[in-house]
């Protein structure tokens, strides 16, 4: 299964399917669902940036360019698996059940956006880089301890692979033989730092050697290969109760966040070339080529996505502010006297 150096790809950037493509290449119902989710997330993303630009939402990290593997991880995970996301993984979150309104709410500066109503045991996205990897390992321990045949999947960016917590998590998951999937989305940049300056390693997949387990590289913009690899990894982790690492190669087509200007550190030409490998377009063209959808359907899918996002925005904008009590009431189950006093102090201001 493992190859630490070769990137697995079945559907290339020009839409050519290789002869040895797995079954998923012909499971068009699934692929169509994935495509619709990708379009929704891309539409959400576009709207989120617009809301930030008009002062209706805070700083936001766009997922543009990594929707493919992100959505696929959400589709493949079982409801009872545990997901520990990094902050640029809206696709997986969406298919796990995090609503678009909750996502707007979180990035709009409201803690209640993390109170996921449909996936109560998933972690909120982690901002301190790579720290969430250890939570996935702990959750996997708990799942195994309670005799459940589930896994934890943690997503990370390429920059996260330089962090100590990443190595500590891999090491512990290996040593304790825990079903953890480490899904690294290598979008080539950690803010402005290119992958070449992040590591001397030839690949990020090879870092799994340090943990003693398999590391795979997949074209994260190839929906066929991504689906195949993520599914294989999750099945292996559960069946053998061991960790697996995936390095999904994508490209960050956006700025790091709405507060960033990527043209300070990369060229328009590089960006234009990266667009040619985009996964969402690749899947669209593949579905058209196989007569699953036509141009008219493409427009309808986009229109449906816009409607869904519009409704989520309307809900988001109608949410009332929290009470000032809420700033205090969620720190402890048993609220200390001193905090109760400070709450009164603020209320009396």
């Amino acid at each position, binding site marked *: 299964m493992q190859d630490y150096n070769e990137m697995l790809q079945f559907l290339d950037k020009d839409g050519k399917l290789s002869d040895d493509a797995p079954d998923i290449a012909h499971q068009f119902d699934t692929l169509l669902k994935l495509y619709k989710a990708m379009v929704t997330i891309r539409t959400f993303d576009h709207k989120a940036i617009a809301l930030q630009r008009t002062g209706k939402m805070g700083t936001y990290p766009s997922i543009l360019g990594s929707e493919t593997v992100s959505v696929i991880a959400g589709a493949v995970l079982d409801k009872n698996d*545990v997901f*520990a996301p990094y902050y640029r993984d809206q696709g997986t979150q969406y298919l796990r059940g995090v609503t678009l309104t909750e996502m707007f709410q979180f990035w709009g500066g409201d*803690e*209640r956006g*993390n*109170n*996921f109503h449909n996936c*109560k*045991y998933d*972690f*909120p996205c*982690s901002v*301190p880089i790579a*720290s969430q*990897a*250890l*939570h*996935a*390992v*702990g*959750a*996997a*321990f*708990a*799942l195994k*301890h*309670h005799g459940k045949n589930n896994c*934890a999947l943690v997503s990370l960016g390429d920059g996260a692979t330089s962090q*100590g*917590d990443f190595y*500590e*998590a891999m*090491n*512990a998951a290996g*040593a*304790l033989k825990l079903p953890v999937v480490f899904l690294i989305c290598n979008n080539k940049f950690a803010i402005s730092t290119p992958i070449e300056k992040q590591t001397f390693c030839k690949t990020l997949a090879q870092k799994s050697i340090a943990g003693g387990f398999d590391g795979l590289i997949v074209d994260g913009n190839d929906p066929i290969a991504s689906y195949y690899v993520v599914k294989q990894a999750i099945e292996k982790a559960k069946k053998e109760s061991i960790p697996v690492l995936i390095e999904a190669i994508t490209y960050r087509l956006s700025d790091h966040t709405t507060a960033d200007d990527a043209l300070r550190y990369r060229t328009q030409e590089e960006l234009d070339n990266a667009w040619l490998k985009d996964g969402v377009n690749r899947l669209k063209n593949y579905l058209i080529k196989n007569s699953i959808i036509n141009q008219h359907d493409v427009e309808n899918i986009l229109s449906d996505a816009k409607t869904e996002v519009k409704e989520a925005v309307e809900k988001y904008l109608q949410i009332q502010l929290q009470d000032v009590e*809420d700033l205090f009431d*969620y*720190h*402890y*189950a*048993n609220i*200390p*006297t*001193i*905090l109760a006093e400070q709450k009164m102090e603020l209320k009396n201001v």
Partner: protein
Amino acid sequence: MSSVTLIDAINLALQYEMEQDPNVVLIGEDIGLNGGVFRATQGLQEKFGENRVIDSPLAESMIAGMSIGMSTHGLKPIAEFQFMGFIYPAMNQIISHACRMRNRTRNRLTCPIVFRAPFGGFIHAPEHHSESTESLFAHIPGLRVVIPTSPERAYGLLLAAIREPDPVLFLEPKRIYRLHKQEIDNNGIALPLDTAFILREGSNITLISFGASIVETMQAAQELEQYNVSAEVIDIATIKPIDFETILSSVEKTGRCVIIHEAAKSCGVGAEIAATIAEKALTSLLAPIRRITGYDIIMPYYKMEKHNMVSTTKIVQAAKETMEY
């Protein structure tokens, strides 16, 4: 009833709660067959197995981070850090996640974890093994910081800490791990958190302390009797949040106060206590508040560490000066 040391009492409390609650698991370095470097977990892996007493790889951030994932998913981990001086790699996990999870998910995910660590000096250990940096943690919203000073309180407060639905840092004064024995009843009854204990009643001066310094503080109170000074001694026990009700009513009664702790003076727990007394009971004071603490220095290596320790002499002298003010 059995006569036990402070470290034995910790072992008893761990064992009691592991028997009662199958979700309680221990994680840490060398805590299994070896029973922990101070033997707090002695015999527990034999009794409860490797899945509940987990010998972890050597990585403190991992111990804290894994505990977070375990606690959000149905377990109640009790994590051991071998020494307080080795917690720092785990600070990000403790501050950014363990203490924030309830708040940032609006009660959806919670972290009922006990982080245990021995702290304090004067056991002639190598550098980094004698730290008293508890006030770093007393500054963190969402955390409780609990420090027992006797076998009885170690037993009762540890049970309370394990049963608390939020993270608790349980700091154990290792200098007095085996100082004396006390009869305790292994009945599973917890002591209250967020509550100070009046160890000795008195009417002239209030001596406030916690941790191993309680020993010198109690000796000083005894010695002050010779000078006809009746000293009240408060063991604040939970330094985050502090039970100011007990402190303020004592200081209002005595009008005088000396605060004693081993940690450095500036921004130490004593500063918080002094400030709150000044805010809320200034007019009761008959003399300025005094603090007897460690200096604002790096803990000296053991040949000179005694100079940075609080002593009965220093406390008695400060108390006498306060009385004569």
